[in-house]
């Protein structure tokens, strides 16, 4: 080899310069006609805190469910094949690990609000064979209905029962006059669930249930120490569903 030390250093220097210029070249090459709206609410880990002390009777839950299901065209099917994005259930099915036989009466049969937990480690995303369900950069576990093949692996994977399958055309159970014309329905053979109102966040609005909750639901960025969710979690005792399985839900319950 007759490479001199001087030559070697010159080549090394030029190579490093090339690397330094790469981001600029990348930015120029990836010039696409697509942009994120300036109204978009941004976060790195969206989370919701449910104040269970404010949600007790059916009348407390109903407006939240109505707000969600009406804007997302979620049908109400009076059988086991019903579709749920947000609903409620009794304690023993919400916190099944909590096997205390002498629970205080007020809590024994209390109902808790349920929705997709938008897990930090979502099992549904790991099992989906088509990547129809995926985790966005802001932490929302999203469904791309265009890709869903209806295999229902995600339903088996979800430990919280947050997913519903369309056994029939949902439009059979939707009133065409009351449909939200700005949001699609789903079709027979796809799985659906809560999407943390990504379409409202893109428009600078908070999720519909949060807006309808009169303070019972708090929404914000868990990675931002100044966010309202972090403040309230710092002050009050909170639990999450099935913590032992390691899915790291982003929905917290204040007790």
């Amino acid at each position, binding site marked *: 080899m007759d490479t001199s030390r001087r030559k070697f250093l010159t080549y090394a220097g030029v190579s490093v310069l090339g690397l330094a210029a790469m981001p600029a070249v990348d930015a120029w090459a990836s010039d696409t*006609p*697509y*942009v994120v709206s300036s109204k978009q609410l941004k976060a790195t880990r969206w989370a919701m805190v449910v104040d269970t002390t404010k949600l007790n009777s059916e009348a407390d839950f109903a407006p939240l469910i109505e707000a969600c299901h009406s804007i997302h065209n979620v049908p109400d099917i009076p059988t086991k094949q019903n579709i749920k994005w947000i609903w409620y259930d009794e304690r023993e099915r919400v916190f099944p690990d909590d096997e205390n036989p002498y629970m205080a009466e007020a809590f024994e049969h209390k109902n808790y609000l349920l929705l997709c937990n938008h897990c930090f480690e979502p099992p549904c995303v790991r099992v989906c064979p088509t990547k129809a369900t995926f985790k966005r950069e802001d932490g929302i576990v*999203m469904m791309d*209905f*265009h890709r869903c093949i209806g295999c229902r692996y995600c339903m088996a994977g979800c430990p919280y029962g947050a997913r519903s399958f369309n056994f029939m055309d949902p439009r059979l159970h939707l009133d065409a006059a009351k449909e939200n014309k700005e949001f*699609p329905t*789903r*079709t027979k053979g796809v799985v659906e669930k809560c999407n943390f109102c990504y379409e409202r966040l893109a428009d600078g609005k908070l999720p519909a249930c949060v807006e309808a909750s009169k303070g019972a639901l708090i929404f914000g960025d868990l990675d931002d120490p100044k966010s309202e969710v972090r403040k309230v979690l710092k002050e009050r005792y909170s639990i999450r569903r099935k913590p032992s399985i390691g899915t790291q839900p982003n929905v917290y319950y204040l007790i």
Partner: protein
Amino acid sequence: MYDGSKIIVGLLVFVGMMTFPFWNNIGKAAYKTPELKLPPKSVATECVEGKEFMREKHMQLLNDWRDEAVRNGERLYVSQANHKQYQISLQNSCMKCHDNKEEFCDKCHNSASVSPYCWDCHIAPPKKGN
């Protein structure tokens, strides 16, 4: 030729069946591109891209729109034709001007025998006719 008559009859039947579409259509009117009903000038004077682009590539554009909006969260499109920004949405952008699915989408799709499944989920605007 052994069995010549059978072979010739068989060939005739084969050629006849192969050319069925041609002689069946003799004398019929030639295929005409359906005329689309565009929105009146009072509603819109331009689309997100030029007419030729939309005619040739609206399916690719809609596919890209779908992926960018749903998967990448990029919900605004900058037109290459007039450099304006448009919201990426079939129901809230396209169909706000082209609010007659029968006269705009279906006419061509039916004539070309394609059946995209957009409307299994997306809600077509109520019929009124622009």
